[in-house]
C-alpha cells in the first residue's frame, strides 16, 4: 500500500508539476539559445582574434634584410650588353623629281639629299651598350642603309665614357654625335620628323659627328649647368682632310631646369671650329665643262655657332598623358679661305645660316601631331664666280623655306607610325613631299632623354 501511495504521490506531483516543468523547459531553451548565441559571438571574436594574431605574428617577423638577390644560372652570356635594334621603313612621294633636289646657297653632302622616292628601307640601327667595368660605359651604334643597291654599314657611334668619374666630370672618347645642337646629339629615329631640319641637311649632311674626345663638367647646383668641349680629328664634314693633331674643336654650355611642376626648359650655345683641307664640293650639277670630274676644293677656316632652346610642358609634369614640346635652333656658319680646282684659284668668304622651330603636341598617350618651319639664308662671295657655280654655291641670296606637318600614332612605347607632309621651298622650284613611315625598336628598353 505504501508503495502504491508513493507511486500515486509521484504521479500527482509529476502531473501537478508538469505545467511548471514545461515553463522551465522553454526557459531553459531560451537560456540555451542565449548561451549558443553568446558562444557563437565569442567564437567569432576568438576567430577574429586568431586571424589578428596570425596577421600580427606575420608582421612581427621582420625577416633579416634580404641580400641583393643571387642570380641563377650564372653563365657567360649573362654579361651580354643591352642590345636593341631600330628598324624603319618609309614611303616617300615628291611632286618634283628627287634627283633635281637642291638647297640653294648650300652644297649637299653625304646623306643630305632626299630619301629615295617610293618604298625604301630607311636606316636600320643596331645599338649595343653596357658597363665595361667599374669605370667605363661603352656604346656602339651600327647603321645599315642602302646606297644605290648596296647595303652600307656605317659605324655611327662607338664610344667609351667614364661612369661617375667624380665632381660632375665625364670624359668620352671615340666616335660620337657632336654636342653642337639639341637635335644633333639625338639619333635620327628619335627626331620628331621624318627628315632632318634643312640647316642640318645643308651644313652637316644631316648630322655632325666627331672622332675624338669630349670632356664635360656639371655644376653642383640645382640649376642644371653643363660646360664642355670636344676635340676631334677634323675629317667629318664640314671638316675635311687629315690632321696630325687636333682637327676640330668645340665648346658648349647648357643650362636647364623646371619652372613649377608643369614646365621644363633647356638652352644651349656652342661653337665649333675646323680648318678643312681640300673639302670637295661634289656639286649636284655638271655644267657642261666637266665640273663633276674636277671637283672644287675648299681650304680655310670654318666656324659654326649654334643656339638652341627647348621648352616642354606637361600637366602635373606627367608626360604620359599629354605634353607639348617647343624647340628652336639657329646655326651660323662663317668660313674664310680659298676655292680651287685643277685650273683656277679664288679667295672665298661664305656665310650660311638658318634654323628651324617646331612644336609637337601629344594629345593622348598614343597620338602626337606637330608642325615645323625651316628658314635658311646665305651670303657667299668668291673672287671667281665660275668656281662658286661649279661648287653649287651660286644661288646665294635666296632664302630656302619649308613648312612641315606630321601626325604620329604610337601603339606602344616601342613603335610609331608617322605621316608627314612638307611644303618645300628649298630652291626656286617648290615641291610638295609626303612621307609615310614606321619606326620600331626591339630589344633593350630605350632611354627617355629630355
Amino acid at each position, binding site marked *: 500500500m505504501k508503495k502504491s501511495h508513493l507511486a500515486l504521490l509521484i504521479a500527482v506531483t509529476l502531473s501537478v508539476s508538469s505545467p511548471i516543468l514545461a515553463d522551465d523547459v522553454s526557459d531553459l531553451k531560451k537560456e540555451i539559445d542565449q548561451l549558443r548565441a553568446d558562444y557563437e559571438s565569442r567564437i567569432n571574436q576568438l576567430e*577574429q582574434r586568431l*586571424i*589578428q594574431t596570425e*596577421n*600580427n605574428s606575420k*608582421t612581427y617577423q*621582420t*625577416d633579416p*634584410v*634580404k641580400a641583393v*638577390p643571387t642570380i641563377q644560372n650564372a653563365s657567360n652570356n649573362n654579361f651580354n650588353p643591352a642590345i636593341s635594334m631600330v628598324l624603319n621603313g618609309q614611303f616617300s612621294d615628291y611632286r618634283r623629281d628627287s634627283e633635281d633636289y637642291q638647297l640653294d646657297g648650300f652644297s649637299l653632302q653625304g646623306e643630305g639629299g632626299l630619301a629615295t622616292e617610293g618604298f625604301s628601307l630607311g636606316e636600320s640601327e643596331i645599338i649595343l651598350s653596357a*658597363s665595361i667595368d*667599374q669605370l667605363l*660605359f661603352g656604346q656602339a651604334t651600327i647603321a645599315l642603309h642602302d646606297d644605290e643597291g648596296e647595303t652600307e654599314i656605317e659605324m655611327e657611334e662607338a664610344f667609351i*665614357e*667614364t*661612369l*661617375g*668619374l*667624380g*665632381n*660632375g*666630370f*665625364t670624359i668620352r672618347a671615340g666616335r660620337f654625335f657632336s654636342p653642337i645642337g639639341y637635335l644633333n646629339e639625338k639619333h635620327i629615329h628619335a627626331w620628331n620628323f621624318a627628315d632632318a631640319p634643312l640647316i642640318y641637311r645643308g651644313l652637316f649632311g644631316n648630322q655632325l659627328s666627331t672622332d675624338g674626345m669630349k670632356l*664635360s*663638367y*656639371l*655644376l*653642383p*647646383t*640645382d640649376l*642644371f*649647368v*653643363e660646360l664642355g668641349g670636344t676635340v676631334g680629328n677634323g675629317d667629318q664634314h664640314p671638316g675635311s682632310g687629315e690632321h696630325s693633331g687636333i682637327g676640330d674643336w668645340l665648346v658648349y654650355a*647648357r*643650362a*636647364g*631646369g*623646371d619652372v613649377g611642376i608643369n614646365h*621644363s*626648359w*633647356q638652352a644651349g650655345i656652342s661653337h665649333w671650329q675646323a680648318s678643312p683641307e681640300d673639302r670637295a664640293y661634289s656639286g649636284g650639277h655638271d655644267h657642261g665643262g666637266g665640273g663633276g670630274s674636277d671637283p672644287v676644293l675648299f681650304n680655310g677656316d670654318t666656324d659654326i655657332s649654334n643656339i638652341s632652346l627647348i621648352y*616642354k610642358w606637361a600637366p*602635373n*609634369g*606627367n*608626360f*604620359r*598623358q599629354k605634353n607639348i614640346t617647343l624647340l628652336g635652333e639657329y646655326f651660323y656658319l662663317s668660313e674664310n679661305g680659298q676655292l680651287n680646282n685643277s685650273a683656277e684659284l679664288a679667295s672665298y668668304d661664305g656665310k650660311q645660316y638658318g634654323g628651324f622651330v617646331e612644336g609637337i603636341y601629344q594629345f593622348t*598617350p*598614343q597620338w602626337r601631331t606637330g608642325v615645323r618651319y625651316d628658314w635658311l639664308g646665305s651670303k657667299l662671295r668668291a673672287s671667281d664666280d665660275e668656281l662658286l657655280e661649279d661648287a653649287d654655291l651660286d644661288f646665294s641670296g635666296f632664302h630656302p623655306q619649308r613648312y612641315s606637318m606630321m601626325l604620329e600614332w604610337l*601603339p*606602344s*612605347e*616601342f613603335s610609331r607610325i608617322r605621316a608627314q607632309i612638307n611644303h618645300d621651298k628649298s630652291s626656286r622650284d617648290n615641291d610638295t613631299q609626303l612621307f609615310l613611315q614606321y619606326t620600331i625598336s626591339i630589344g633593350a*628598353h*630605350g*632611354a*627617355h632623354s*629630355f
Partner: protein
Amino acid sequence: MKKFICSLLLLVAASPVMANITIFACEPEWAALSQELGGNKVTVFSATTALQDPHYIQARPSLIAKARQANLLVCTGSDLEAGWLPLLQRKSGNPAIQTGASGYFMATDYVDLLDVPSSLDRSQGDIHAAGNPHIQTSPLKILQVAQALSQRLQQIDSANATVYQQHWQDFEQRWQTAIKKWQQQALPLKGIPIVVQHNSWPYLFEWLGLHKVAVLESKLGVPPTVKDLHNVLQKLKVTPAKIVLNAAYQSPRATDWLTNKTAITKVTLPFTVGGNDQSNDLFSLFDNTIQLLLDAKQ
C-alpha cells in the same frame, strides 16, 4: 656683387660642415620613407610626384642636376625607372650613385616580388622581367625596405649610425602598430571583388585579401581599347565586381567608361604619398587608402 661672391664662398666653405646626406628618391613613397628614417640628418628630393607615371619620366635637366649632388639614390628598381635612371646616373658624373655603389639603393632588391612573368615577350605589353615593381601598396613590403634602407643609411653615414638606429626603432614600432590598426579596419574588405585599371595593386590585394576580378589594361602599359573594355564587361556579367580601382596619376577615361556602363563604384586611390590631399605621409597614405575602400564598399 662682392657680397654675393662672399656669401657664395661661405656657402661652399660651410657645406662640408652641414654635410647632410642628400637623398635622391625616385618616387614620393621612398622620399617619405627616407625622411622618416633619416630625420634631420638627411635632405630628401623626390624626382617624381604621385601625379606622374613613374614609367614615363624624362631625364630632365633638373633631375640630372639633382642626381649630380646626391649621396644616395633610393628608387624602386626592377626596371620601373629603366627609361630614365640609367641616363641620370651616366650624365651625373657622380660616383656615389653608380650601380653597385653604396649610394645605390633599389627597394625591390629587398623584397620578394609578385607577378614574375613566366615568359618575356613585348606582345604582352611593357612587362617587368623581375616582377611587379609597385611594392609600396603594401605596408609589409615597406617595412622590409625600411629595415634595409636604415642599415644602408647607417653604413653610408656611420657617424650618425645611432641616430638612424633610433629612427628605425621608432618607425618600426609606430608602423607595426599602424599595420595592426589597418588590418583590423580592413577586415570587412576581405574577398571583395575588384577591377583594376593597371596591374598596380597586387601587393595591396595580397595584404588585405582583396579579390582581383579583371584588369582594364589587357596589355601592360598600353591604354585599353574599346574591345578590351567590352571583354571586361562580359567578364563582369559572370563575376560581378563592386569596385574599379585606378591610381591618382592614371587617366580616368577607362574607369569612367566602366562606371557609366555598370553599377560599379570607382575609387581613385592615392597610390603613393601626395596622391591626394589626405595622403601627406606614409601613415596617412594607408589611412586614406583603407578609408576610401571602406567608403566604396558601403
